[in-house]
């Protein structure tokens, strides 16, 4: 109910509000119309008078005022304008009027037009300052640099005072006038007309597209308080490249800085399909027509031939080359010096390469600021090892120079400066024409040429003096410089007759640099007299009649020239004897003297004169207490020491020679001052391993006494040969060895002993290896007593081969070895024992056996040879219970398998119990197939066991033993082929054998005889079983077949005699020990020793 009421009330409310809103809007419309009416009335009132006064100025001196003419005023209507600016002035004008600029402040302006009067208040602030539109006087282009040059006049003369002007210049490109750049340019008006220049370099070659330029200005007069506005833009001027029809690429051969950007364009009438920078594609920027451009950013350094930029059209390519490089680096290490004080040479390092070559390469200019002169650097067309240097001619009376080296290339320039006093920077040339002249034997003059004028400075020269095999000597000389370049000095303190090599270099004072060394000049100084006499020694000849004088040639320093000859003289108290002159290469003389005391004098002579004499006494003082000592050197020499002896007044002399040479022997000698007690003897002639004799002489009262005699080696070596040794005596347990001495030449050192090795060994098998390796089976004897020449080796084994080795040793090492094989003698006692013991044992065994046999002869007979065999004792029928029982290996006698075919009872002459003939029908004959089924109880087996005959069985064929009486043979079926060889049967003929006698000689039954008669007599000549022996299988009990116990059918390994317990056992294989007698010997006894 409530909802319905509300719904009914709402429409009435809405109507009321609408009514109220419509009343309000209506009032507003009325007010608006009223206002418009009033404004129109006012406006129409205005329109009837001049109105909208506006003033502008373009020169700040004249205001150009204008107003709107009243309605109804025609063209040419005249107005009276009166301005109240302190003084009342009126102008009769038409619609616009130019009035002089009014002073700041409000001014009343009255414009009378007929009867209507309009009054305005005019202030400078209401005036707009709009400069005149500037006019471009000239627009030009430098296509090579892509630069536009703009020229215009500021018309400053029209302005009353100085003002700042801002010029705005706009660059437009292409026919569609894309604005490229708008830039401002500030100038000042100075009351005069001034032509301004402005240049702009385009990033795009101007040839690529038409470029337009416009300009406007804005004058900023600080005293003008009105509106300052920009002028209008000037008329555009353009620059375009008048191209012919040929395709061209711009810019051409441009040199730019590495890393900068560049625009390259192709002006063409063909369609460009591709642009390449080197081998890299670049996107095209299309310009007017078919013209295209590419922009290269951050370009890298070019190769020497530049960077190729190409544009490809359908069948051609056009391009340009850009050279990207660096501006020249600051010249480094600029240095200026002079060689001769006539010319200055400046050198420098160009620094970083510019990557620009040819005409774009860096050019250098050297400028001297004091004189104002300069020189330019010209590069060689083909650069070799470029040396950057410039020559500058020195100026007279100028020592200080201020150099500026300027480097320039298309990308920029740099410079380096240097202030230099050239007199302090002298680097002289190499001295030339070095000459040497004699002054005397120890002094020469040196002259040389040094180019340059050094008259004003001092020179410091260095002379290098080289003597052969000597340390070079440097001498510094300071001298005054001369103008003519020739210099001369004296060089003294030289050695006579010596080859010197001189060379010179010079510098100046103060020092800057040495010149190079001059060429070497070699010179031989003149001779002087020998400075001392030769070193002499004397030896008596072996017969003691002649004295041989030796002397050593003088050294070069002592000879002072070429020694031509020697004078030898001898003098005694009574007389002086002079010998003839001895020419140089000979350095000994022999004088026949008696044993008197003589003084021998030797003088060396060269072309200048004679040396002081060298004297030596001939007398030799005997020494009874002389021992021969040993000494070993240090490899290159040998040290000899002795005790100080105050009696030795002159000097000591050590002479030496090779010990293997015969006397008198002299290799060399050495003199030592008398106060010395030791000396080292060194000589190039010394060889290691060679024995030398050294003799120490002391000089006493003008005579020499032999003090010591020494044998020695400078170095000991190992012997080269082994001692030669022989075996003197050999016994069963020892060997006596004797050896000989080793010759001194082969010993090569002092013998320290021998090493003797021995071991068991045969010549062919034993090798004496690794003697020093400590093998336990090698015995070593070290014999340090070198006088010992024999050695007995004991505790050896008899009849054994021994390997003997002997080697000598010195301190230099072990010598080679010499070896020998020796066999010791046999040990007779052992042999005898070895023989006697077996014989004795055999005898004892034999005797004991004989005794036993004798004492048990009855038992033996009963057991083995009974007179009447007891059938009960026949074991053949008891096999299962006795022999064969319990041993699977002896199943050969299982009788249930031994089924006889027939049994024959033979009549014998001997008295034996007769057995009834019993015919047993062979199951085989009757039913061969059922032979195995024959029951045992159906057979009657009559057997007879003869006595056992002990006889060595050599062959199974000989086993066919049987009793002398009736024997029953059992034909045993055998599954195996017999192994016995029929041809061996005759050899085993038992006829010739002892023991069991077979039935071959017995009378047999007729049946048997018939059968036997049919056979060959030979075949029947012996014991013969009644079966084919070839079917016998001779299997030993231990043969593989016989051990086949699992088989039900176990055949006999041999034919079986029922009355015998002997089985025909085949001979055993070869491995079984042979039992044949007579084979044993003593030799075998020895051979079977465990050692073997």
């Amino acid at each position, binding site marked *: 109910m409530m909802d319905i009421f509300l719904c009914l009330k709402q429409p009435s409310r809405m109507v009321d509000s609408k009514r109220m809103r419509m009343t309000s809007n209506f009032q507003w419309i009325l007010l608006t119309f009223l206002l418009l009416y009033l404004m129109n009335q006012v406006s129409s009132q205005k329109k009837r008078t001049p109105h909208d006064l506006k003033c502008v100025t373009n020169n700040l001196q004249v205001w150009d005022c204008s107003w709107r003419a009243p309605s109804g005023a025609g063209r040419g209507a005249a107005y009276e304008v009166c301005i109240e600016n302190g003084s009342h002035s009126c102008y009769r004008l038409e619609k616009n009027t130019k009035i002089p600029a009014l002073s700041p402040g409000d001014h009343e302006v009255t414009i009378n037009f007929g009867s209507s009067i309009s009054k305005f208040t005019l202030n400078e602030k209401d005036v707009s300052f709009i400069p005149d539109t500037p006019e471009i006087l000239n627009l030009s282009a430098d296509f090579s640099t892509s630069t536009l040059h703009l020229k215009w006049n500021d018309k400053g003369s029209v302005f009353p005072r100085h003002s700042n002007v801002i010029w705005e210049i706009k660059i437009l490109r292409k026919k569609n006038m894309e604005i490229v750049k708008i830039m401002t340019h500030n100038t000042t008006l100075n009351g005069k007309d001034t032509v301004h220049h402005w240049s702009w370099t385009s990033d795009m070659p101007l040839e690529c597209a038409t470029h337009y330029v416009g300009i406007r200005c804005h004058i900023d007069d600080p005293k003008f308080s009105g509106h300052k506005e920009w002028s209008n833009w000037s008329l555009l001027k353009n620059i375009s490249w008048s191209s012919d029809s040929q395709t061209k690429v711009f810019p051409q051969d441009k040199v730019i800085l590495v890393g900068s950007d560049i625009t390259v364009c192709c002006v063409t009438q063909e369609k460009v399909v591709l642009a390449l920078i080197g*081998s890299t594609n670049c996107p095209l920027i299309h310009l007017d027509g078919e013209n295209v451009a590419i922009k290269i950013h951050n370009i890298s350094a070019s190769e*020497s031939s530049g960077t190729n930029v190409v544009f490809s059209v359908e069948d051609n390519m056009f391009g340009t080359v850009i050279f990207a490089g660096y501006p020249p680096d600051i010249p480094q290490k600029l240095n200026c010096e002079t060689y001769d004080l006539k010319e200055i040479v400046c050198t420098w390092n160009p620094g970083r390469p510019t990557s620009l070559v040819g005409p774009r390469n860096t050019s250098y200019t050297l400028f001297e600021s004091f004189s104002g002169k300069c020189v330019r650097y010209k590069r060689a067309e083909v650069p070799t090892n470029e040396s950057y240097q410039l020559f500058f001619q020195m100026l007279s009376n100028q020592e200080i120079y201020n150099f500026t080296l300027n480097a320039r290339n298309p990308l920029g320039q740099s410079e380096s400066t240097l202030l230099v006093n050239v007199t302090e920077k002298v680097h002289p040339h190499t001295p030339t024409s070095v000459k040497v002249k004699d002054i005397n034997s120890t002094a020469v003059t040196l002259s040389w040429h040094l180019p340059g004028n050094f008259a004003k400075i001092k020179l410091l020269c260095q002379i290098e003096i080289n003597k052969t095999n000597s340390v070079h000597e440097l001498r510094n000389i300071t001298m005054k410089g001369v103008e003519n370049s020739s210099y001369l000095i004296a060089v003294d303190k030289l050695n006579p007759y010596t080859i010197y090599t001189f060379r010179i270099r010079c510098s100046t004072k103060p020092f800057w640099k040495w010149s190079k060394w001059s060429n070497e000049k070699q010179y031989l100084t003149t001779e002087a007299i020998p400075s001392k006499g030769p070193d002499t020694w004397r030896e008596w000849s072996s017969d003691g009649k002649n004295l041989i004088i030796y002397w050593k040639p003088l050294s070069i320093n002592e000879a002072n020239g070429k020694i031509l000859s020697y004078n030898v003289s001898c003098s005694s108290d009574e007389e002086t004897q002079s010998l003839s002159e001895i020419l140089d290469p000979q350095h000994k003389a022999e004088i026949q003297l008696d044993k008197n005391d003589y003084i021998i004098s030797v003088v060396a002579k060269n072309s200048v004169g004679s040396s002081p004499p060298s004297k030596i006494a001939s007398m030799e003082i005997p020494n009874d207490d002389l021992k021969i000592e040993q000494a070993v050197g240090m490899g290159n020499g040998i040290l000899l020491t002795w005790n100080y002896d105050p009696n030795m007044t002159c000097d000591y002399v050590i002479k030496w020679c090779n010990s293997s040479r015969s006397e008198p022997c002299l290799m060399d000698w050495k003199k030592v001052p008398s106060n010395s007690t030791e000396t080292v003897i060194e000589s190039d002639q010394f060889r290691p391993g060679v024995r030398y004799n050294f003799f120490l002489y002391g000089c006493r009262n003008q005579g020499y006494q032999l003090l010591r005699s020494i044998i020695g080696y400078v170095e000991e070596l190992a012997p080269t040969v082994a001692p030669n040794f022989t075996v003197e005596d050999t016994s069963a347990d020892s060997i006596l060895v004797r050896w000989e001495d080793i010759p001194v030449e082969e010993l090569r050192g002092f013998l320290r002993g021998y090493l003797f090795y021995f071991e068991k060994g045969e010549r062919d098998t034993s090798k004496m290896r690794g003697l020093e390796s400590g093998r336990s089976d090698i015995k070593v004897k070290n014999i340090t007593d070198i006088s010992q020449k024999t050695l007995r080796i004991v505790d050896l084994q008899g009849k054994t081969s021994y390997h003997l080795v002997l080697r000598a040793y010195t301190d230099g090492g072990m010598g080679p070895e010499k070896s020998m094989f020796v066999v010791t003698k046999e040990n007779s006692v052992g042999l005898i024992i070895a023989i006697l013991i077996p014989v004795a044992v055999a005898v004892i065994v034999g005797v004991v056996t004989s005794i036993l046999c004798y004492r048990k002869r009855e038992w033996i007979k009963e057991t083995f040879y009974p007179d009447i065999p007891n059938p009960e004792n026949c074991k053949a029928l008891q096999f299962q219970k006795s022999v064969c029982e319990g041993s699977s290996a002896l199943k050969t006698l299982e009788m249930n398998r031994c089924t006889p075919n027939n049994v024959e009872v033979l009549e014998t002459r001997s008295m034996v119990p007769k057995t009834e003939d019993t015919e047993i029908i062979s199951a085989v004959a009757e039913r061969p197939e059922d032979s195995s089924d024959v029951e045992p109880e159906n057979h009657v087996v009559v057997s007879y066991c003869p006595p056992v005959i002990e006889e060595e069985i050599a062959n199974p064929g000989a086993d066919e033993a049987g009793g002398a009486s009736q024997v029953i043979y059992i034909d045993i079926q055998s599954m195996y082929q017999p192994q016995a060889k029929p041809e061996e049967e005759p050899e085993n003929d038992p006829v010739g054998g002892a023991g069991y006698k077979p039935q071959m000689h017995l009378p047999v039954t007729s049946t048997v005889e018939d059968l036997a008669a049919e056979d060959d007599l030979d075949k029947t000549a012996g014991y013969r079983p009644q079966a084919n022996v070839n079917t016998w299988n001779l299997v030993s009990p231990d043969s593989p077949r016989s051990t086949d116990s699992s088989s039900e059918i176990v055949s006999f390994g041999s034919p079986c005699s029922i009355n015998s317990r002997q089985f025909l056992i085949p001979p055993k294989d070869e491995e079984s020990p042979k039992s044949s007698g007579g084979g044993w010997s003593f030799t075998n006894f020895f051979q079977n020793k465990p050692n073997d």
Partner: protein
Amino acid sequence: MKVLAAGVVPLLLVLHWKHGAGSPLPITPVNATCATRHPCHSNLMNQIRNQLLQLNSSANALFILYYTAQGEPFPNNLDKLCSPNVTDFPPFHANGTEKARLVELYRIIAYLGASLGNITRDQKVLNPNALSLHSKLNATADVMRGLLSNVLCRLCSKYHVAHVDVAYGPDTSGKDVFQKKKLGCQLLGKYKQVIAMVAQAF
């Protein structure tokens, strides 16, 4: 030697160009006396053949050396940058008489010699470090001079031709670097092509 080559070759070229590069030289009168300073070699044609073979054998190497030294993209755009379309190159007819062939050969070698001089000069400025190229250019120019002398000797001694009108290629001295490179490459490409044909014709 280099100084000599550097000095003499331009001098000779200048002497030739003096009368007008790119235009035929004044023609020798037909009745002009023909005299050689030295007697011609007896086996002159053989020498000419050998010289042609020598030039032919080295032309390709020179071409390769040249365009390699100009940098990319020359080696990979030989068809557009080094095409042998040299318009004013003297013609050669392999089936003409020996005299005609010799005259044409003379014109070709004279043209090539002058052009090679331009190339050598430009490359010394542009590629001062390409010594092997300079050496090859100089060697080729040397052989060409000898060949020119031999051909003239042959023409004079056998055919009594004392002078042959020759024309030269455009002077590149005022051209931009790329034009120098391109013209040189085109010329050497043309040289390689023509010298093979000429060597075969003799």
